[in-house]
């Protein structure tokens, strides 16, 4: 199976009005430096799955800032997506896809490790 492309993703998710991540589709192509209402929800998503440390004030802004872009790059690398640092359609489709609740990265004293202990032969 391959991750949904953007149109299929949004079509499938439209079927469920109360789908929690449905609104992420609005952030397609949101550029660095822009402020998009609700972006803080996407930052909470990235925080939950280990990509974006919580800010000292324990809240997130709606700005597409450097830290957010770094988290996005980490997300794209970790999940085998094209590493663009942008909210492109592949990345949005992946973010909107239903998933496992386990974090992708391990937090050690809130410092996110870029890799989980892994061994490859």
């Amino acid at each position, binding site marked *: *199976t391959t991750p949904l492309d953007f149109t299929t993703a949004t079509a499938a998710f439209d079927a469920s009005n*109360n789908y929690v991540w449905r609104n992420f589709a609005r952030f397609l192509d949101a550029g660095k430096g822009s402020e998009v209402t609700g972006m803080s929800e996407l930052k909470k998503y990235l925080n939950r799955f280990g990509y974006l440390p919580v800010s000292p004030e324990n809240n997130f802004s709606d700005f597409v800032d450097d830290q957010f872009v770094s988290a996005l790059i980490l997300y794209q690398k970790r999940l085998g997506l094209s590493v663009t640092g942008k909210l492109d359609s592949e990345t949005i489709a*992946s973010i909107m896809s239903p*998933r*496992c609740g386990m974090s992708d990265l391990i937090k050690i004293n809130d410092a996110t490790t870029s890799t989980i202990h892994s061994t490859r032969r």
Partner: protein
Amino acid sequence: YAFFNGQPRWIRGSTLTYALSPDYTIEYLTSSEIRNVVRRSFSRWSAVIPLNFTESLDYESSDIRIGFYQGDHGDGEAFDGVLGVLAHAFSPENGRLHLDAAERWAVDFEKEKSKVAVDLESVVTHEIGHVLGLAHSAVKEAVMYPSLSPRGKKVELRMDDVEGVQALYGSNPNFKLDSFLESEKSTNTG
């Protein structure tokens, strides 16, 4: 493939017991449908590692405890309704495996027509990987890749999954790499 920090694994013997919660379940699938799916899911992992899984009727004393939970269910990781987070599990030797009761779980997409139906066997197979000590994989085809499309199915372990779990537990003596690679090739061409 990837592990949790410290590579936790089960060391209490070659057989683990599992049980479905008698209280936290769903009604629209029969108990035998759910039990068949769970048994198949465990058998995929036991085919590649020297570990057996036995179903138990004594939920509380089972090594692995599986249940369907709604919203905030007391472990700090609340479920979020339809789609979104589908399930989660805990690393060894905790043994808890939780499925979001708000999903529309399916065991047969011929019968279940919902656009947002989620394949129970795919998710259970994935979460058992966590119970055994595997973290998320970056390989999209792998069972341990974190996301699953609605009406998508991903139940066959891939080489990445097998390498990871065998790195933790060793290989099942009956596991034949050649025949596994053959079946993976046919899955790929399929």
